[in-house]
């Protein structure tokens, strides 16, 4: 207690000093990079960097080429390939020395080939320094080749095929891929010798060449047209060259497959009966930098116009933008900013301005055409809005540090005096936002879209605060709401989805065949499709209807997941089963909400069950409904795929009744900017965490711990962090003979008390939306399931680079060492005892839990539902091979290694329930004593366990 008071005093002292220095001063960080490459706290954005040499114009410089092998210094072992390229196999810094003949502005590109599937991450140093913020987090996508667009199943339905990693060398320009800047980065070099260093943080890359290109200002179409005239190019009046959108040969994402629109008669090709792969894009193709490349043959040299049939039904009353490149080059300025306006149906357009189409000069021969996502004209808006949102966010933190999350309505906070320049900041934000909204409206022809709406709501709040300076605190919750909604729109603004059905090229615009099908044709198509939907063929989801050996699987998911699994089975399971068993095994997927028990009772059960909740396998196993997987000789090999303890909950007696097919765990999230400002380190132990909590709460913010919210069949792992604490304190939950719960033991009670104290004594709120509060900074430190990481990474651009993840706090063991154990949550998949195809079902399970399948399943799902749909695979290899940021992957991998699982016993679900009930009793204060609550509920749980044991003993007889 004394110690506690001592700490508290210190904390208060520190706070008194630090509060006066709020608002945020950027703290010094030393990331500890070695080798003289100092990562300074860079405040220089590219925008400001480029302003420094805006008025200098040195465009007549020469191109400078450097071979990959001509490095002057290298920190890591690198190999030279036969072609004289540099093969970088690991993290490391490679330095090149260049001689610049005269002051000039260059863009930098390098020609390389990325090995493997991960995108390439890179920091660029010039003369040992990162020139601007963005150069410290450059990334380049891998290219994928799509040789085969689709395959056809035996029912005549087409399905898309996964692309292969491109083996070619590609020229990659250093450019922004957050959408803030549409043009490649420009670097200023003064005359003389300079060094360029590349710091690869995930490298498996073969580097051929580094190119410094002098800044090349794009000509306008006006000028280009004049050159056409001077060269006497002619307009080619030919039948259009037709390129199908889905036939793109090169793409920057694995998850950009050809898609099928079965609802519209306008898309080519279409069929009312069969699924046809007939367009590409939609939500797969929306992030800045994502590129599709098509190639086509031109038979006659001359001028061509380009038209497309497209659909842009996602951005209401707004444009989606694309950059056109012909043979890898943007031909003129306007081509970097092609807009596609909103409509709910398929539309056609010809690239051009109001008066005439843009003509592109094409020589006879093969060419490539590429469209890549850009924010176009809205990129500047995005950047400006991001800046304003940041200011609004910082201001929010300043406000709540004074008022708290819910200000006392009876108190006068006098915010305008307390916060320096408060009035000015609000005024500026409001007027900037108003200006932005007006300009955005102008861009889309005065149509109000969602962005403008969100902006107007924000300005309304700001104006109210300015108008009522003495009751400004009344608007805090409104301010929070509008700020979070504006941040979400900021994320949306970065997305530019577009679907392309077909691209056509011809000189004569009259020849384009891009129109939609007529009204009657569409209606007829819809009617036939509707009638056909009643046929049995339409509803079956089985693969290969004529297979003799067939296994049946029930799934209770959406159609998307089922479709993805179905495609995967066709893509690889048939082959896999042929290799394993010597014959193809068909799979029948049935979407049903029926539970397994219904199936078993009606004797119509599936052969295997996927994603069974934590306690289900034991429940079924003790009643003889599941098959013991240890009967298969290779089960131990299969278990190697998972975390060491992942299968622990699925053992009953000596049998194994399920394989883990998903596993999730907690990690810690922190807002680096806020922790820095408060002078806090990232907590390493629980003591650190609680100390940090005290400091954070002093500043009217709070920390987050997940609450206990298990459903009937989840294990103890889902009772908040109780399971984790039990693991760290090395407390056994069940007796060694698996016949009773030991939660009434001394050590379990002390862990339980420690857990509930966090909520009752330290006042960590039991419920709050972590995601939103973390974004706005209300909750700068928290522990949550790692899936939040993906959500934050994809959907919270406004805090990019200002947060991180870390291992969850550790407990110091008695011997002075510490452990980071964390309890897992997850599901399992198993085979039913009554199944007559056990061997086939086992083959399926082996296939399903394999790294390749899990990865492919995940990639397909992500391509349809977005990165947020990432599955919590239990396969360690698949997990590591997913596209993570590499530093974060290390942390995640580390934490995954520390996952431990509780065993499950018959009636064990009641233990979870008892913990949950006892927890809420303590939190609600209906039981003063954590010990009493837990002991009382544990008694009931033990009674249930005893009853179950009696029941299965009876069954065994």
């Amino acid at each position, binding site marked *: 207690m004394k110690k506690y008071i001592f700490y508290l005093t210190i904390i208060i002292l520190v706070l008194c000093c630090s509060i006066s220095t709020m608002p945020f001063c950027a703290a010094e960080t030393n990331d500890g990079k070695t080798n003289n490459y100092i990562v300074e706290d860079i405040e220089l954005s590219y925008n400001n960097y480029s302003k420094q040499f805006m008025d200098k114009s040195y465009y007549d410089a020469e191109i400078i080429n450097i071979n990959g092998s001509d490095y002057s210094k290298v920190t890591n072992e690198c190999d030279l390939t036969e072609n004289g390229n540099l093969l970088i196999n690991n993290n490391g810094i490679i330095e090149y020395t260049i001689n610049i003949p005269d002051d000039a502005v260059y863009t930098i590109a390098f020609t390389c080939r990325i090995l493997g599937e991960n995108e390439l991450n890179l920091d660029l140093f010039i003369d040992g320094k990162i020139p601007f913020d963005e150069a410290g987090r450059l990334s380049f996508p891998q290219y994928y080749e799509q040789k085969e667009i689709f395959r056809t199943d035996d029912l005549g339905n087409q399905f898309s095929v996964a692309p292969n990693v491109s083996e070619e060398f590609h020229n990659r320009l250093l450019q922004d891929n957050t959408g803030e800047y549409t043009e490649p980065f420009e670097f200023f070099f003064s005359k003389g010798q300079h060094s360029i260093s590349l710091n690869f943080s995930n490298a498996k890359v073969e580097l051929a060449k580094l190119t410094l290109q002098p800044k090349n200002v794009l000509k306008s179409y006006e000028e280009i047209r004049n050159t056409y005239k001077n060269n006497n190019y002619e307009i080619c009046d030919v039948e259009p060259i037709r390129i199908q959108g889905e036939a793109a040969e090169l793409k920057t994402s694995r998850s950009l497959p050809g898609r099928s629109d079965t609802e519209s008669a306008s898309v080519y090709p279409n069929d009312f009966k069969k699924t046809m792969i007939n367009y590409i894009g939609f939500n797969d193709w929306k992030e800045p930098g994502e590129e599709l490349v098509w190639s086509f043959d031109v038979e006659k040299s001359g001028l061509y116009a380009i038209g497309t049939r497209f659909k842009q039904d996602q951005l209401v009353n707004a444009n989606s933008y694309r950059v056109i490149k012909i043979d890898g080059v943007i031909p003129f300025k306007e081509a970097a900013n092609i807009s596609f306006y909103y409509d709910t149906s398929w539309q056609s357009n010809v690239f051009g301005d109001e008066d005439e189409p843009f003509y592109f000069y094409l020589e006879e021969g093969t060419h490539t055409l590429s469209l890549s996502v850009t924010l176009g004209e809205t990129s500047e808006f995005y950047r400006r809005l991001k800046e304003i949102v940041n200011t609004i966010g910082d201001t929010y933190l300043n406000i709540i540090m004074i008022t708290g999350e*819910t200000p006392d309505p009876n108190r006068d906070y006098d915010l305008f005096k307390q916060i320096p320049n408060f009035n000015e900041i609000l005024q500026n934000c409001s007027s900037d936002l108003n200006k932005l909204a007006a300009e955005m409206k102008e861009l889309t022809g005065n149509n109000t879209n969602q962005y403008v709406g969100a902006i107007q709501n924000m300005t309304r709040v700001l104006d109210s605060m300015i108008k009522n300076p003495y009751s400004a605190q009344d608007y805090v919750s409104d301010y*929070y709401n509008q700020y979070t909604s504006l941040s979400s729109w900021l994320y949306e603004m970065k997305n530019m989805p577009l679907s392309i059905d077909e691209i056509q090229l011809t000189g004569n615009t009259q020849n384009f065949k891009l129109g939609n099908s007529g009204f009657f044709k569409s209606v007829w198509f819809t009617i036939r499709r509707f009638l056909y939907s009643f046929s049995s063929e339409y509803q079956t989801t089985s693969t290969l209807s004529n297979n003799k050996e067939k296994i049946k699987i029930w799934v209770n998911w959406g159609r998307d997941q089922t479709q993805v699994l179905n495609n995967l089975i066709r893509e690889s399971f048939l082959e896999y089963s042929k290799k394993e068993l010597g014959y193809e095994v068909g799979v029948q997927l049935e979407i049903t909400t029926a539970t397994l028990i219904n199936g078993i009772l009606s004797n119509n059960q599936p052969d295997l069950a996927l994603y069974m909740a934590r306690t289900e396998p034991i429940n079924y196993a003790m009643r003889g409904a599941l098959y013991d997987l240890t009967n298969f000789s290779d089960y131990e090999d299969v278990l190697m795929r998972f975390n060491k303890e992942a299968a622990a909950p699925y053992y009953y007696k000596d049998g194994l009744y399920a394989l883990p097919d998903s596993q999730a765990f907690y990690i810690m999230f922190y807002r680096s900017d806020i922790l820095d400002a408060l002078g806090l380190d990232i907590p390493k132990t629980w003591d650190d965490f609680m100390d940090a909590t005290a400091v954070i709460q002093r500043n009217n913010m709070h920390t987050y711990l997940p609450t206990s919210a298990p459903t009937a069949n989840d294990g103890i792992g889902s009772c908040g962090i109780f399971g984790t604490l039990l693991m760290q304190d090395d407390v056994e939950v069940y007796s060694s003979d698996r016949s009773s719960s030991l939660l009434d033991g001394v050590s379990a009670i002390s862990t339980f008390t420690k857990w509930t104290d966090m909520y009752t004594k330290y006042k960590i709120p*039991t419920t709050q939306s972590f995601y939103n509060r973390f974004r706005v900074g209300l909750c700068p430190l928290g522990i949550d399931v790692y899936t939040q990481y993906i959500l934050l990474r994809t959907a919270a651009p406004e805090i990019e680079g200002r947060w991180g993840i870390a291992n969850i706090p550790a407990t110091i063991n008695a011997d002075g060492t510490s452990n980071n154990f964390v309890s897992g949550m997850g599901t399992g998949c198993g085979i039913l005892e009554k199944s007559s195809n056990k061997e086939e079902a086992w083959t399926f399970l082996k296939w399903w839990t394999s790294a390749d399948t899990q990865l492919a399943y995940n990639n397909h799902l992500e391509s349809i539902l977005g990165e947020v749909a990432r599955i919590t695979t239990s396969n360690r290899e698949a997990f590591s091979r997913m596209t993570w940021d590499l530093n974060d992957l290390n942390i995640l991998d580390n934490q995954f290694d520390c996952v431990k699982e509780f065993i499950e016993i018959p*009636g064990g679900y009641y233990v979870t329930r008892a913990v949950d009930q006892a927890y809420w009793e303590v939190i609600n204060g209906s039981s003063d004593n954590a010990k009493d609550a837990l002991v009382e509920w544990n008694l009931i749980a033990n009674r249930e366990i005893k009853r179950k044991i009696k029941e299965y003993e009876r069954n065994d007889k």
Partner: protein
Amino acid sequence: MMNKTSNKENIHYYIMISPFIIAFFVFTVLPILQSIILSFFNYDMLSQPTFNGIENYIRMFIDDEVFGIVLKNTVIFAIAVGPAGFLLSFVLAWFINEFRPSIRAILSFMFYCPSLIGNAYFVWQVAFSNDSYGYINSLLLSVGIITEPINWFKDVAYVMPIVIMVQLWQSMGVSFLANISGLQNVNGELYEAGAIDGIRNRWQELWYITLPSMKNMLLFSAIMSIANSFSVSTVAVTLAGYPSVEHAVDTIVSHIADVGTVRFEMGYASALSVFLFVLMISVRWIINKCIQQVGR
């Protein structure tokens, strides 16, 4: 002899009602019989049932600490949602019936709407969100009534009233509609006759004319709302989860579902359902007796 011929003559009636009788027997009578039988067995659905006499019933009354709580909750719900809901809906119907037809139509629609849109009670989950930015919490916070957000569905003090309120909101519509149509079917001439016969006020009019003329409607809506109130569980389970905190809003039905589907004890679940069945039958008998008294 007489009987036989009349049976033969009436055979087409039997044929006409046979589809319903068969369906009723198969889907209602059989399951009831089945659960009465099963209630004397131990049955986990996957292995053979074993006979264990009245052990299930003994357990229900002696050895099940949850049973007492859920029985109490069920009775509270039955009273609050059944008779209270029924009275409320009648009074509302009576008031609304006094309005002009156009307004009446709008008001009736408003009251019937919640029942019509089924699972719309989810909106209450949003309204009573435990977050400090939940609608009701943020309202109370901003007015200054509370200082920290209330965890509505996890706090024993609040969860019951909220569930009762939502249940009333949702289930009142049906009996309200029955009542309003009953009110409209009352013969207007009776009021005139009553006025001549010496009815002095609206209360007498209500008791001696309105209520007796709509006895059947009353019976229907009373049985509907009270029977409904015993099987209240979906709303509570959706809003507060099962088990709710300290079993505060768990009812017999949700207890049955838990015992049967989570704990695989069909025998015991059957015994519980038989108990509920008997309870509902006796309550129905009481309602019937009460309604008979109307107007006397």
